[in-house]
């Protein structure tokens, strides 16, 4: 009986631990979401038709790393949207912590930078939390079944686009387009933390 209880409490502890960490891992089916785009319309991931997958990028207006990558995010969309992999950009920063990441700021920023992709506002931060996004930029590459195929950085050099040796996201999308397994499924990078609501 004691052993059974011990085993049971272990299971419960494990479940509790996995519930506090709801992050999506590679191989899991990512949650669908319904968020407001900068054009005022609501976008549901599963409503995007005729796609082979999604390059979901958690980003924002203010982080120096997000800024360093914004041209490259635009280039990703321009290259891969016609091939069925559009960029779906999401800003999850709390506007109380970062006023320049408010919905209105997103609108003017998207206009100024001529974002060719949807730029969605995750006001409740639920999507970032469900995905387990921690930083900006933080990429989740999903296939058309919404299975996570890659998580991490866009490439191996945030400071200097011209010095990039390995384009992680491009390599991953190319692999999916070729019907192959993604070779490098997860990478890490230094980044700004997502600005969580202060409780």
């Amino acid at each position, binding site marked *: 009986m004691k052993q059974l209880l011990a085993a049971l409490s272990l299971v419960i502890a494990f479940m509790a631990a996995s519930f506090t960490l709801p992050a999506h891992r590679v191989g899991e089916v990512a949650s669908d979401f319904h968020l407001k785009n900068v054009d005022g319309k609501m976008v549901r991931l599963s409503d995007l038709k005729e796609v082979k997958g999604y390059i979901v990028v958690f980003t924002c207006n203010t982080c120096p790393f997000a800024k360093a990558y914004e041209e490259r995010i635009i280039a990703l969309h321009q290259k891969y949207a016609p091939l069925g992999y559009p960029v779906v950009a999401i800003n999850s920063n709390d506007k109380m912590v970062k006023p320049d990441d408010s919905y209105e700021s997103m609108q003017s920023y998207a206009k100024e930078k001529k974002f060719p992709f949807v730029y969605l506002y995750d006001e409740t931060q639920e999507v970032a939390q469900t995905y387990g996004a*921690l*930083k900006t930029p933080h990429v989740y590459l999903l296939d058309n079944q919404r299975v996570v195929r890659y998580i991490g950085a866009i490439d*191996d050099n945030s*400071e200097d686009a011209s010095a990039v040796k390995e384009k992680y996201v491009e390599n991953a999308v190319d692999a999916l387009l070729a019907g192959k397994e993604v070779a490098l499924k997860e990478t*890490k*990078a230094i*980044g700004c933390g997502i600005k969580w609501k202060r409780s």
Partner: protein
Amino acid sequence: MAPVIFQFRKSLFSRRLQISFALLLLSHLAIAQDIPFIKAAQIEQWKNANTDTIYVINFWATWCGPCVAELPEFEKLQQQYAGQKVKVILVSTDFKKQVETRVKPFVLEKNLHSQVVFMDESNPNNWINLVNPDWSGLIPATLVIAPQKKFEHFYEGELTYEKLETLVQSALK
């Protein structure tokens, strides 16, 4: 000729004045500390060092608000433990092109006394796991090591002075 000599004297005088003024400034201000560049291998060297010194290694950047906010705690720690074998190392993860233009002026302005070094690696994916496999890459992050005891504690996020001190105390034990 006279005006020329006069000018010469004046300039010599003003130069002297400049020098003594500069010396006066130097004696009152912090001298800009040199910021050594380190490579990923340095992390392993710290971890395997044959020393009873405790390393408190903080990863930060000038653009990171929470990092800048907690820097005084590390400065305080370095001061409080000056007589003990505790060494605070502040590893800047700023952009390389900003070391001269941002990091150095920042270190001078904030009058940082702890050792500041720059992580000279373009690809963080190559060294983040060397610090700790659980680290997402988010900063601030802090690694406390007592190399000889093989004590290692990694913390992702902001630290209060109390928490930082508790970590150092357990490393000192």
